[in-house]
């Protein structure tokens, strides 16, 4: 299965788990999106530990809008993270899954303890199913230590009367921004 079919499938499957998938054309749009959603939710900070490209622009944008930008030692800022902005290595269309290399502790904290997680997914890295990533994953595991996360939606539970409730421990929302790789 090729692009744009995989993206269509990913979008369709994402809606079932309330993941918002949007296509963006540039890093500028990514930053605008992050700013917009953080403001809308009255957030106060953006955690972006692995954001190299565009980091200067992000810093400027945060400063201009009175948002704290957190890029390291996130353990000291737990409970203060509004939006977590990270990269996703791959997308798995069949299950609307993001594959995020979370080996760095800061990155884990940014994706686990934020209110809203925004992930940037390179358009060319969407595969139809997990099997397609088998070789890549094995290679990553072999370069241990490695903490690899499949993320498919916001944190959820149905433990009280089987009523689906979002945001029990982790993020309350997951947004995926699909971007052309050469914009990265």
């Amino acid at each position, binding site marked *: 299965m090729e692009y744009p079919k995989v993206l269509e499938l990913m979008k369709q499957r994402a809606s079932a788990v309330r993941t918002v998938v949007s296509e963006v054309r540039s890093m500028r749009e990514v930053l605008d999106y992050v700013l917009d959603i953080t403001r809308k939710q009255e957030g106060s900070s953006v955690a972006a530990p692995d954001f190299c490209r565009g980091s200067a622009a992000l810093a400027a944008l945060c400063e201009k809008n009175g948002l704290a930008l957190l890029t390291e030692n996130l353990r000291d800022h737990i409970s203060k993270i509004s939006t977590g902005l990270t990269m996703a290595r791959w997308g798995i269309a069949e299950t609307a899954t993001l594959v995020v290399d979370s080996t760095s502790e800061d990155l884990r904290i940014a994706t686990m303890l934020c209110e809203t997680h925004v992930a940037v997914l390179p358009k060319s890295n969407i595969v139809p199913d997990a099997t397609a990533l088998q070789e890549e994953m094995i290679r990553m595991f072999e370069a241990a*230590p490695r903490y690899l996360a499949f993320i498919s939606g916001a944190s959820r539970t149905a433990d009280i009367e*089987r009523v689906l*409730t979002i945001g029990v421990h982790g993020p309350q929302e997951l947004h995926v921004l699909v971007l052309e790789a050469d914009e990265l």
Partner: protein
Amino acid sequence: MIKTPSDIKEYRKNLKNALGNQFLGTTLDTFASAYPASRENAFAGIDFDALACDIAKAKDEAIPNLEKLLGEFTTKAVRAGVTVHFARTAFEANSMIAQIAKDNQVKRIVKGKSMTAEETFLNSFLEREGYEVTETDLGEWIIQLRGEGPSHMVLPAIHLSRRDVAELFTKVTGEQQDPDDINGMVKVARRELRQKFLEADMGISGANFAISQTGTIGLVTNEGNGRLVTTLPRVHVALIGVDKLVPDLKSALKILTALPRNATGQAISTYVTWITGATECKSAESGRKQMHIVFLDNGRLALSKDPLFAQALRCIRCGACANVCPIYKLVGGHNYGHVYIGAIGLVMTYFYHGLENARAIVKNCLNCQACKKVCPARINLPDLIKAVLRTVYQVEGKKPIRNIMLQKVLADRRLFHFMLRRARFAQKPFAEEGYIRHLPMLFSGEHGFRSLPALAKVPLRDMWERLNPPVENPKYRVALFGGCLIDFVYPEQAEALLRICRGYGVQFEYPMDQTCCGLPAQMMGEKETAREVAIQNLKAVDPARYDYIVTLCASCGSHLKENYIALVAGDSPLAVKVAQLKDKILDFSSFVTRVLGMVPEDFKSAGQKVAYHAPCHLCRGLGVTREPRKLLEISGLEYIKSKDEEVCCGFGGSFSADFPELSAELLRRKLNNAEATGAEVLVTDCPGCVLQLRGGTKKRGGQINVKHIAEVVCDQRKRI
């Protein structure tokens, strides 16, 4: 502490209490009704049976090699900075974990959901050692605060209402909680548990996979607590049963395709976490996590070498065997297992938690096959449950008198049939309109919930010659396997079959030496008797002589077709005969529609409105679902679909004598569903179901008539 009664009387008292719990009944019924559709949806485009075969095969390749896989895993994990431990017993595992805590000056521990830790009662062990242990999965936290065990492997607090949780959280927080604000209560947990994560020195998780190829563990979770447990504290201990070892990522991904879909109807769980080695942890002195993996044996390695029970280790803990179990639906997990619940719980309890906890619950199986059909690892759960029952009898060295009687009587066809004929006279004073309260010799116990049929005046075998004149130039030579109920209680159902087939060139035969199919013996754990009877029937009905062997009883049919193979396995040349028999067994509807090819022109039009009950052993045992419904339509009847058509009617042979209260409740629901269609007749294709359903309507004065499908189809057949 979990208490599971070992005494059947006490157990039945608990069951009765559970039946009286209205919340539980409604909530589990809603769950059971919603589950099949969401599961089907999740598996859309995936061949479930092929996937289940694949998983079973992968597991069967791993199970005999667990020690080797453990060695490979250990090498890889150690290289990546993990300390790997091997615990032979539950006590050893708990002690090791306590020691790890002690060595690292741990005070507070947060836990992710782990059935293996439930198995070893790890929490109470650590608490006794002075540690503060907090479960962080919402459901697990709730039951921990209540001091209970899980009532479902995936949904541990499914037995509790929002009111129960609100009351509990009010107590815990000191603030009034609104039971109707579930979101608010979830946020209370988020707040309270967030604090625990931040304070904890050690995190304990389970794992769904341990991949030998790379020394990776995989965790399948929804809430995200598993990620926090493995990230924030400086020490991480994963407690993993050795049965979770798989050779490679490919096997793990295969299991992952089935696990969330079968468990909760999700295409995937929100988080799947793959951890290889000790990763970065800034709160640890070294900057790297102290990571320990404790592999638990607790009998698993021995089980892996058991010719029969090794397949239980294929279990991937999806909990689906509970989701579809009609008994689980009535009484909940606290009455349907010990730590492990559902069908797999009835099996594993004996091995992991002993005879005392297993002896009562293991009797509580209808053999309806619902669990077997839905198992993603193709574990033959009903068979294993019966095998545990047998083991319990063997270990205790005593069995119910009923078993001893059955063993004696069933093994000797002449004696058995002689007693059945005598029983007809014994019942005489009690018979009224074809019903009696007790059928001597065959049944006992509380049967007040349904009327029981009287034995037929003349058994089928005695009138066979008169009913079945020779056919000139027959096209088909067909043996009828009657079974006890057709032969001695409902010969009219066989008579209907003969009438329907008239003019189609079928020469039927009734091999006179045939006897009970043996399923009742199998159900009661009497495998030797079941085997003896199977051999008698194989001698009586030589498959080489017939084109088809037709049954009117779904239970006989599926027992002959599926269980005989295992019963006479290795017995040359009967094993050959049994394979031939298997290929020739056909149920009534399949014979009439597929072999004889009957068409609407053979029948009158404008028949009655009918509802249909699919016998367990037809729709699952023999896998026949289309033919009976198609036949109803061809024969001009107006078939109306009812709720839960494929859920057991509660008969289950001796089950209804052991657990009459459960049998009665299943029957009540079944009849309610049938009556709700407005049909005049409830049709089914197994005389056992007819007995249960007809007895039930009779008892409650219901308006609906219960008929065997052969009877209604016969009434619709044009005279020739």
